[in-house]
């Protein structure tokens, strides 16, 4: 019996010591939740409940997916088609805010979380100036939209000005022309290119004098992060769904990690 007890106690210790990789942790890495608490949680991404839980978990802030309604309201929503997660269908830009605010997420049984506007978020997050937010600008537009990017940029500028967010907001986009227009609007915006490859991102970021590169952890190495740093560019990584991917991400020494394992990464770095 004693032998078995020793075996039961010692075995997990052996495994845990084997799985921990020796590395130096950079505690200055900024921990952001991915749309709040990340993918695959019972709080849908980008809801008030998810973002607040993330901020209350000890993170530095949150990434938020941002889309534009037909009447120019910026809302926090991830997917292209509303039918993937809500009781509506089509893109956010097909609807006015009055319709979107009555929609609800249908991903989990019995739950009816609402879609959030950025105005609602910043009007109701306590001490929001203490946190950092990264706006992933999703440019999904309605077929009938006119001057979509200009309308988007105007709404974005208004919300940043209204809540004085310039110092604690980062803006990401895959669209180079959108980033150019934003830069023209205000050269002090902290802009990130969201490229398909690191090389492509580095070239665009240098050409446009951007603040940094947002890239999947699968598409970037530690050496490439160093290369970006040597060019005075910040690096934000995402796609860190598992504990191992978070450890791997930390090992690459980026400036930001947008994580789907919020509590784990906070326990690791904070």
């Amino acid at each position: 019996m004693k032998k078995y007890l020793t075996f039961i106690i010692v075995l997990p210790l052996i495994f845990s010591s084997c799985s921990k990789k020796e590395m130096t942790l950079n505690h200055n890495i900024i921990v952001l939740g991915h749309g709040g608490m990340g993918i695959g949680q019972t709080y849908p991404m980008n809801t008030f409940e998810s973002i607040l839980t993330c901020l209350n978990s000890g993170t530095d802030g949150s990434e938020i997916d941002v889309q534009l309604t037909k009447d120019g309201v910026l809302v926090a929503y991830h997917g292209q088609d509303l039918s993937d997660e809500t009781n509506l269908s089509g893109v956010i830009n097909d609807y006015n805010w009055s319709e979107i605010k009555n929609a609800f997420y249908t991903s989990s049984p019995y739950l009816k979380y609402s879609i959030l506007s950025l105005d609602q978020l910043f009007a109701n997050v306590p001490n929001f100036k203490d946190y950092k937010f990264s706006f992933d600008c999703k440019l999904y537009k309605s077929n009938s939209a006119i001057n979509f990017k200009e309308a988007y940029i105007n709404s974005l500028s208004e919300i940043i000005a209204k809540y004085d967010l310039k110092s604690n907001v980062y803006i990401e986009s895959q669209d180079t022309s959108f980033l150019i227009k934003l830069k023209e609007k205000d050269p002090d915006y902290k802009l990130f290119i969201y490229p398909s490859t690191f090389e492509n991102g580095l070239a665009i970021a240098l050409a446009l004098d951007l603040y940094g590169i947002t890239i999947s952890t699968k598409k970037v190495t530690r050496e490439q992060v160093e290369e970006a740093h040597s060019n005075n560019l910040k690096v934000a990584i995402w796609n860190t769904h598992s504990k191992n991917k978070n450890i791997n991400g930390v090992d690459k020494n980026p400036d930001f990690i947008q994580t789907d394992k919020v509590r784990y990464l906070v326990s690791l770095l904070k």
Partner: protein
Amino acid sequence: MKREALLFFLFLLHFSNLAVAQNSEKDNSHRHTLFIEAMGYGGYGSVNYEYLVKKIHKLKLSVRTGLSTYHLNDYTNKFNPDVIIPVGINVYYGTKHNIDFGLGQTITSIIYANNLDFQPKRLNALHTNLSIGYRYEGEKGFLFKIGYAPIIENQKTFRHWALLDFGYTF
């Protein structure tokens, strides 16, 4: 909706009392079952108790209740759990291998951000559950059940759902 729930509980109570009263050959063995349910009436999972109220040859009638939650703390990090209470009635036919039909109601009390001041607010609702499945009852009390268990959320929206149960009958 509250009236419907009350009527349903009265129906369950009446049915179970009637069944117990009529059961002259009282057999107290294997009346109680504790089981965990993946998906099913409780959302993503629940712990449950089931009581066998009537047995006529191979036909059996039982009532069940359980408990589940999505979050124990609300988004402000205070202890303020979501509460999910499934109740139901099951009719099943067989000895070891059974076909099982279920009907129930799930009471939910979930914390949301109030749309006006974004403070936590508890919203209560009632949902209907149906189920049809296969139920295995081993001689040593092992219970296994698998089935199709659609939910009519808020008595309005139909959702395809399933259930997988493991338990112990004693």
